[in-house]
């Protein structure tokens, strides 16, 4: 009895030990870790999960394992894990933050054929120091969102890409809309969305006035650019919007930002294409209009989340392979259909629901092509963005324009100096 049991136990244990080898090919695949910022968004998760599953099925050498993070804490998680030496193979990075991570040594250049991404919108390509570090599966743009009925009712010209509103025209429109008394505020800028929205949405307005966050010829200082005459003119125009009650200020309710235009609280909303689907559902005469031209041509932001390879990855070629796999047009279209994002190529746009010719959001693709200016491509952007956000919030709250812009320019210039020029 005892010997029989011992033999049975032996047989069972040998089988258990041998089974991994019997399973064969599936476990010979090496794991590649992927970190993504989209936790909590079901539409996004569906597409990215599909890409991961398709890639794993298409070959047997590599298996991508994805981990999702909430967007708010994603950057902090990556920095903390980089300090701990725990970065994944493939990671997601916000376009303007990429130079900072590349300079810090967290990312390595991609090994993707440049011809593969030739037709991509410029905002989706993340170059630093002449090398491609990241590529995006979508782009994001901002437009003036309003309703055709609003403009027609108050006899306001509908602007086109070739003939956008001028500064004087735009100011008059806002004053006219305020005088009607029908709206809480004529213009909704989204001041409730603190964080990266401020530099993304409002620095193009500054650029249209002729200023900028930092001098892009040297990337060494903001003196004269952030506190020069054009920037001060922008600052005073900005402060006036809130002083005259033309736009809600920093105390705006987040709920009002989401539903204000649809509810009729606001006449015009400066909003991104990711919120456009909701606007279209609310009213069918929703219009997406180009930015006004404040003197230097109309400008909007560009560059959204992009994929890159971490420097500590043991399999950079495979990681690049996954990223190249994800660049297929069908996935670009899927992201666009699911979340209303701008597809990076004309082909993907033509195949998508909203961006095909005549689609409701097709205008965003053109806006992105013609008016988009990327945020400053410098590792110092992380600090510059925070300083710029605070400066705009302070000016909106009533601080002195010239002094606030001076402080901001000084802080950005000092930060560049303290970091030995940030590798420029």
């Amino acid at each position, binding site marked *: 009895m005892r010997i029989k049991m011992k033999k049975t136990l032996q047989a069972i244990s040998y089988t258990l030990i041998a089974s991994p080898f019997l399973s064969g090919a599936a476990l010979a695949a090496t794991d590649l870790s992927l970190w993504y910022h989209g936790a909590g968004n079901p539409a996004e998760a569906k597409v990215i999960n599909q890409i991961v599953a398709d890639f794993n099925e298409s070959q047997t050498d590599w298996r991508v394992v994805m981990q999702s993070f909430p967007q708010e804490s994603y950057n902090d998680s990556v920095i903390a894990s980089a300090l701990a030496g725990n970065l994944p193979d493939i990671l997601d990075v916000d376009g303007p933050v990429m130079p*900072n991570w590349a300079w810090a*040594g967290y990312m390595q250049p991609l090994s993707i054929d440049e011809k593969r991404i030739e037709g991509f919108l410029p905002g989706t390509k993340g170059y630093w120091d002449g090398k491609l570090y990241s590529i995006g599966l979508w782009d994001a743009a901002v437009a003036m969102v309003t309703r055709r009925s609003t403009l027609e009712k108050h006899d306001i010209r509908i602007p086109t890409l070739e003939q956008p509103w001028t500064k004087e025209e735009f100011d008059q429109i806002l004053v006219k809309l305020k005088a009607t008394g029908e709206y809480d505020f004529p213009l909704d800028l989204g001041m409730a969305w603190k964080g990266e929205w401020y530099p993304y949405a409002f620095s193009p307005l500054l650029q249209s006035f002729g200023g900028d966050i930092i001098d892009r010829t040297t990337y060494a200082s903001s003196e004269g650019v952030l506190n020069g005459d054009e920037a001060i003119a922008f600052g005073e125009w900005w402060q006036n919007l809130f002083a005259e009650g033309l736009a809600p200020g920093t105390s705006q309710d987040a709920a009002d930002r989401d539903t204000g235009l649809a509810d009729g609280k606001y006449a015009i909303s400066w909003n991104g294409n990711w919120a456009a689907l909701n606007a279209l559902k609310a009213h069918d005469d929703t219009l997406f209009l180009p930015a006004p031209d404040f003197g230097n041509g109309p400008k909007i932001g560009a560059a959204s989340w992009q994929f890159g390879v971490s420097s500590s990855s043991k399999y950079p070629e495979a990681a690049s392979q996954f990223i190249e796999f994800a660049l297929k047009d069908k996935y670009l279209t899927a992201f666009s259909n699911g979340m209303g994002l701008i597809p990076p190529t004309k082909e993907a746009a033509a195949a998508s629901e909203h961006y095909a010719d005549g689609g409701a959001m097709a205008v965003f693709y053109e806006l992105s092509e013609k008016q988009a200016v990327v945020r400053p491509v410098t590792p110092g952007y992380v*600090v510059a963005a*925070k*300083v710029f956000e605070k400066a705009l919030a302070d000016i909106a709250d009533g601080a002195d324009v010239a*002094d606030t812009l*001076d*402080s901001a320019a000084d802080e950005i210039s000092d930060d560049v100096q303290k970091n030995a020029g940030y590798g420029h």
Partner: protein
Amino acid sequence: MANQGSRLTRQNLHGWLFALPGFGLMVMFVVIPFIFAIVFSLTNQRLISPNPTEFIGVENYSNLLGLGGLVIEPIKDDEGRWVLDSKGEYKYPRTRKFTRNNPDHPDIQGMKEWFSWQWDHKKVVVLASDPVFMKALVNTLTFVAVVAPIQSLIALCLALLINQRLRGINIFRTIYFMPVVVSIVVVSLLWRFIYDGQNGLLNSVLASLTFNHFEPVDWLGNPDTALGSIMVMSIWQAVGFHMVIWLSGLQTISPTLYEAAKIEGASSWQTFRYVTWPGLRNTAILVGIVITMQAFALFAQIDVMTNGGPLDSTQTIVFQAVERGYGKQDISGGSTLSVVLFVIVLSISLLQRFLTREKN
């Protein structure tokens, strides 16, 4: 005798071994980072950077604490008379004319205006190289100066109330203590909704109490009311904790003293002043020091509710330290702020100890 000696040392060894985990963790997570903070504040350490860290001495401190002064004359017209504006006040040239690219004033270059006042016909300007830190310092000291006495007082009153032998007194004790148990982040989020400028609970309650005469106030968006609102919320949240400490102090006072006072015919105020208060001396010292230290560490409420607040009205030292060290990736700047805060808290605690020492 020898046996006892070796048993004593053996007992001590075990004592040290038992204390080692707690002691070791404290050293690892409190003492070592503290030493690091002092070391980093003397360098240009960044959060992430390929550049090597350099030792820069006290440059961080001079950038943080630098102060300067300026006396500005009013603008004169061509005949040398002072120009008056439409309100009849003197006009002064902008401060930035003197502090930016002006070789006549080399030691105040780069400084910004902190505050100014008019003296005679001249304008006296106090400059600081880091006005945000100065505002944070003033806000933090204001917060401590207001919250510490008020919170201790309210906690003492509540403790006196719940120190009675009534049926169901434990229910009241639980109710008053509950806000302490709730996470400060959750409390801040809830109070942010209460303080909301348009639909907040506070505005609605005040409007209904005054039959709609009350105009809604944007409590957290107005620089004048933001810090006060946060003070009220902080006191509400933490008062239960100190109430319990006072309560424990009250219960150590011998009841025979109260009986003696009653027999002597003392009024309740006299009872409090001559029996209760002297017995609470040590508790008062403890509560005072703990409240002061906790008030200096004001951070979570600011981070959740106002992010430094409208026009820096709710900036605090700890919030600035986190913003600089982690948000702007300048670890050395954040460390400098931490060291400065440590020095301030230490001095105030030592002062409190000195003022409340036993005078024999």
